[in-house]
């Protein structure tokens, strides 16, 4: 058991190092200096307060979308629909943020709650259809992504504005940004990161400390055993998808109430949801793991924007991220090598 824990920590760390190593090899092969490349990446992510602020801005929705994917995974469900749930959450938060006039203490929580409810509703559909009709949740989630994309665009154009491409700015009372943080970093840094961390705590608490969480995890381990033990598998599936969608919706609220303060018409997906899959996987589908993985991916993505200053195409980072996921997936082979090394040492 002890050593298992150790491996669970070692595998992601080794994967990250291997990913970075292969990234360096690719840079060498194409005639770039990997050291200057990675230094540029580091400076682009943490070089000064502005970059550090932007990194945290990127990390915030990643944490929540990672939590969303991870939560469903723990119940044995694959929520590939986080993308769409982010969209509806974003729209709902901006809608509440622009349409209502309320004191901040009500307005801001209400806007975030609206996002969670919208995301939860969007998650309810695949969960319900899975539980009731046994329809594969992946296919319904994918369809719901497209429905969210086109519906949100239509609502922005026809309901919230008069054929404009983006909504009005949200009211100050619904905003997560603070003049203090803006002056400090000159970035778009906002208080959303605190909400994301709170979300991580919430997920940990629900799954590890409540009876319902125990049921959810149990269904994830073995549906039949859970059924036999008297748990309602179907209602747990639906609940898991609703909570997962709720997290995703709040990720959208981070964009709407924090980073952008409005929502514009999108021609394609934001990739917050799809990147959330990577975050959850690297984080081992745990709350704390998702937070750490979100920080890593956020850092890599924002830092990458600075890599062209060292002559390296920023797309290199996407290769590194892919390799990290690949190595995490191949944990079995890493364990095997570690085991061999341990035995040789004895």
């Amino acid at each position: 058991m002890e050593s298992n824990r150790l491996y669970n920590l070692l595998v992601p760390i080794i994967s990250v190092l291997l990913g970075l190593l292969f990234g360096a090899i690719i840079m060498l092969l194409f005639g770039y200096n990997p050291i200057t490349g990675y230094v540029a990446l580091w400076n682009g992510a943490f070089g000064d307060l502005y970059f550090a602020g932007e990194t945290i801005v990127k990390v915030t929705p990643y944490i929540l979308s990672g939590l969303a994917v991870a939560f469903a995974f723990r119940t044995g469900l694959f929520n590939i629909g986080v993308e769409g749930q982010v969209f509806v959450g974003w729209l709902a938060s901006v809608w509440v943020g622009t349409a209502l006039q309320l004191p901040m203490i009500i307005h801001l929580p209400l806007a975030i709650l609206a996002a969670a409810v919208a995301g939860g509703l969007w998650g309810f559909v695949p969960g319900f259809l899975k539980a009731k009709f046994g329809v594969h949740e992946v296919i319904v989630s994918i369809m719901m992504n497209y429905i969210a994309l086109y519906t949100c665009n239509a609502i922005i154009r026809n309901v919230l504005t008069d054929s404009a491409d983006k909504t009005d700015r949200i009211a100050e009372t619904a905003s997560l940004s603070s003049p203090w943080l803006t002056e400090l970093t000159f970035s778009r840094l906002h208080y959303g990161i605190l909400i994301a961390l709170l979300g991580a705590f919430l997920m940990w608490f629900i799954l590890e400390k409540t009876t319902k969480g125990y049921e959810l995890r149990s269904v994830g381990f073995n549906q039949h055993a859970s059924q036999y033990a008297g748990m309602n598998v179907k209602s747990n599936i639906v609940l898991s998808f609703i909570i997962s969608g709720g997290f995703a919706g709040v990720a959208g609220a981070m964009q709407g109430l924090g980073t952008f303060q409005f929502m514009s018409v999108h021609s394609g997906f934001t990739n917050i949801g799809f990147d959330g899959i990577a975050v959850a996987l690297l984080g081992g589908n745990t709350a704390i793991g998702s937070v750490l993985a979100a920080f890593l991916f956020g850092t890599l993505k924002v830092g990458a924007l600075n890599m062209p200053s060292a002559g390296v195409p920023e797309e290199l980072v996407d290769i590194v991220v892919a390799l990290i996921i690949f190595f995490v997936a191949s944990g079995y082979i890493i364990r095997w090598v570690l085991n061999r090394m341990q035995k040789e040492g004895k």
Partner: protein
Amino acid sequence: MSIIDILQSIIPAAIFFAAPLIFTALGGVFSERSGVVNIGLEGLMVMGAFVAVVTNLSLASTMQELNLASLTPWISIMVAMVVSAIFSLVHAVASISFRADQVVSGVAINFLALGVSLFLVKQWYDKGQTDMVQQPFYTTDIWLLSDIPIIGPMFFSGYITSYVAILLAFVVWFVLYKTPFGLRLRSVGEHPMAADTNGIHVTKMRYIGVVLSGALGGLGGAVYALTIALNFSHATISGQGFMALAAMIFGKWHPLGAMGAALFFGFAQSLSVVSASIPLLENVPQVYLLIAPYVLTILALAGFIGRADAPKALGTPYIKGSR
């Protein structure tokens, strides 16, 4: 506009949009029937589209001189198939030999394909997207058949690749259900231990399944690139692979079902494109037509298609000797 005119504009468009999905979904059928989840279809399409466009651009001038310009797209899709098949080995090695979580490995494939292709586009063209392809596929009238009144222009005046796609679905059906190879491939996806006991090489069959999905996914991406997109950028393939995955599940992991589902998606997509010129539909707000294919798919799944059971051993690595 008469009903025949409407059908004559919708049906060719439907087949045109469906072709890349058919190829890719058939690839998915091979992989998942052998027991390997392939959520990396999106990435395989990206790779196929990228290789096809790059091959096409690099060969264009040479082929022009040789007076063989009409062969360029064919060579391009062949190269794309081969490269994507090799690329899919990454997924095969991870999920079969390294016993990786197949969903995770598939996600990695999606990221990797996009990263590698965009990185190389930056390297080779020094910009975010390639130039437009000069020698894509063109529509052709099929000899004699296209002269049939009414149905000729509807069905027999289009891209040859579309007909190849539909034919291929029947070929795949034959291979999977009428040949010993197909029986073996399906058996390792249902009950690998029983298959192994009968002397079927489980690992080998699964490798074949994944590599075939790589080739067909690459083909799908290549056909998309050379008939619809005509260049390659980060947005060329955005979700078509997932749609193909959906088509495969919708079609219940059956080649002809997958083809039917892909044609349905193509039909719905063409409706939203040509709706402006159709009397009944011209006043419907566009958003309803845009979301129609997705809503209809969900309703169809919930209503009369119902439960779809995946191959039994889907997603579980085969470990010799374990029960």
